[in-house]
C-alpha cells in the first residue's frame, strides 16, 4: 500500500497570535511551527500501517522552503520520503489542487490528512482532495483498518460514532483517536540523522488560483474581569445567568 500523509506547517498550539501589515498578515515573528496536531495522529497511523502491513509512507506539504524543517521532522518520525510543492499555501482549494496533482502523479492508495489545520481551521482540504481525485472519503476518522483494497473506518459523528465500509483509493480526514496520544512519536537522534539522508523532493506547482482570500484579521475584543460569586450565594449566579447574561 502506498500512503501519502499531508502535513500542514502550523504555529505551535501555545503561540500568541498577532498580525502585521495593517492586520492583513499573520505575524510569524517568534512563532515556532510544528506538524499540525491532526496530521500527527495520521502520520503515526501511517507508521503503524508501514510497520504492520508493509506500506510505504510519503509526506507532502504545500509551502515555501521555510516548511522543510517540519517535513524533516515527519521524516525523522519515520516517513520514507517527502515532497514539497513549491508555492505559498493560499487557501484550501488551491492547496487541494496542488495535492491532487501529487496524488495523481504518485498513484497513492491511501491519503491521510488532518480533519483541519489549527491555523485557518477550514476543514476543507481532505474533502476537496477526495473530490478532485475521485477517491472515497471519510471525514473525522478515528479508526482505520485496511485489508487489501477494502477499508473499514470509524468516524466521529455528532453525539457518537459510526463505522463505514469503503474501498481504496481513499482519502481520510483524520484526528485524535486514529492513534492514542501516548503513541505519538517524538523523533529520536537516530531518526533525525536518518532523516537528513532521506529524499525531500521539491516539485513546482500547477496553475491554480485561490478561490478565497483572508483580507483582514482581527482579534476578539478583550474580555472584562470575571464576576466572582460566593459559593454561599448561588442564587446570585442563577440571577446573573438569567437577568444579566440571559442564557437561562
Amino acid at each position, binding site marked *: 500500500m502506498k500512503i501519502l500523509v499531508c502535513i500542514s506547517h502550523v504555529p505551535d498550539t501555545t503561540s500568541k497570535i498577532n498580525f502585521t501589515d495593517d492586520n492583513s498578515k499573520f505575524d510569524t515573528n517568534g512563532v515556532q511551527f510544528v506538524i499540525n496536531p491532526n496530521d500527527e495522529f495520521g502520520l503515526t497511523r501511517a507508521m503503524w500501517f508501514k510497520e504492520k502491513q508493509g506500506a510505504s509512507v510519503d509526506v507532502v506539504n504545500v509551502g515555501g522552503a521555510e516548511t522543510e524543517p517540519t517535513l524533516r521532522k515527519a521524516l525523522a518520525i519515520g516517513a520514507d520520503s517527502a515532497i514539497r510543492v513549491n508555492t505559498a499555501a493560499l487557501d484550501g482549494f488551491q492547496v487541494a489542487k496542488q495535492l491532487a496533482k501529487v496524488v495523481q502523479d504518485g498513484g497513492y492508495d491511501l491519503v491521510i490528512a488532518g480533519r483541519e489545520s489549527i*491555523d485557518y481551521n477550514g476543514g476543507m482540504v481532505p474533502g476537496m482532495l477526495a473530490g478532485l481525485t475521485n477517491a472515497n472519503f471519510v471525514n473525522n476518522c478515528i479508526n482505520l483498518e485496511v485489508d487489501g483494497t477494502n477499508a473499514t473506518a470509524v468516524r466521529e459523528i455528532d453525539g457518537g460514532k*459510526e463505522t463505514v465500509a469503503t474501498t481504496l483509493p481513499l482519502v481520510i480526514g483524520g484526528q485524535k483517536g486514529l492513534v492514542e496520544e501516548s503513541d505519538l512519536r517524538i523523533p529520536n537522534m537516530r531518526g533525525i540523522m536518518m532523516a537528513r539522508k532521506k529524499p525531500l523532493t521539491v516539485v513546482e506547482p500547477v496553475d491554480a488560483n485561490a478561490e478565497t482570500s483572508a483580507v483582514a484579521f482581527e482579534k476578539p475584543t478583550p474580555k472584562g474581569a470575571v464576576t466572582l460569586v460566593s459559593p454561599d450565594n448561588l442564587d446570585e449566579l442563577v440571577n446573573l*445567568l438569567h437577568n444579566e447574561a440571559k442564557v437561562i
Partner: protein
Amino acid sequence: MSVLVYTESEQGKFKKTAFEVASYAKAVATQLGTTVTAVAINANDASALGNYGVDKVLNVSNSQLDAFNAKTYADVLKQAAEKENAKVVIVSSSADSKYLAPLLAVGLNAGFASNVVDVPSSTSPFTVKRTAFTNKAFSMTTIDTDVKLVAVSNNAFGLVESSGNASAEDFSPTLPESGVTVQSVDKATDKVTIADAEIVVSGGRGLKGPENWGMIEELAEVLGAATACSKPVSDLGWRPHSEHVGQTGKPVAANLYIAIGISGAIQHLAGINASKVKVVINTDAEAPFFKAADYGVVGDAFEVVPQLIEKLKAFKAQQ
C-alpha cells in the same frame, strides 16, 4: 437566482440548526435582493421552514438517503443548486455538513468559507467574518468565485422568525454511487449533542473520577444541556473522546459553557472561546480559566454543583 440552504433533519424532524441556517440564508437573500430555497431530505413537515424565511422548499424523499452519505448528499445539493441557479449555498457546521461541504465545493467549483459567524459585511466582494487560529482570531474572508459556499458556525446567528409561507416542490435528483457504506451507528439518541447544544456542562480532572459524573449529568439535565469534558478526562478514559472539547477535540460554540474542575489550558480555551458566556467552578482561584470566564465560583465542585442543581431546579419551577 436564489440563496440555497441545506436544512438538516433527523428521523424526519428538522434540527435546530436547520432553522438557524434558514434564518441566516434569509438575511443573505435580503442583502442580495433575492429569495431562499431550502433543500429538505426526508423531512416530514417542510412548511415549518417558512417561519424562518424560506420561500421555497425542494423536498427530496428517497429511502436511499435515510442514512447520511456525504458524497450522495453533496451531489443532491449540487443538482439543487444548479436547478435553482444558486449563487450562494449555505450549510451548517454540523459534522455531517462539514463532511459534505468540501465535496460540494468541488462539485460547484465554489469558494468555501467555513466557521462563519456573521452575515456578509459586503456582497461585492462577498466578504464574511469567520473564526481562525482556533478561535484566537477572526478572519475577514472574501469568496471570489461565481458560486459561494458558506458554513455557518452553530449558535453564531441564532433563530430569526419571520411570517412567510414556504411553497413546496418535489425534487428527485439522480443519486450517484456513494463508495462509502454505513455499517453501524453508535449514538445516544436521548442526549443533547455538543454540536446542537445551547448549553454545555463540562467536567475536568477536578472531579477526581468517572464515578462522580452523576452530578455533571444531573446539572446538564436540569439545563437541557450537553455534557462534555477536558482532554485529560478523555485521555484517562473517564469519558468518551466524543465529549472531549478543545483544540484536538470538539469545538464548542454554545450560548453558555459551564466548566467544572477544569483549570483552562490554552488548548481547552481555544476550543471553547466561541461560546458566548462562560462560567467556571474551581477550587483554585489562580486557575487560568478565571481569566477567560464571565462568571466564576471559587469553591469545591462537590459542594457547589449539588447546591447549584437545587437552585436551578427551584428557578425552573418558578418559570
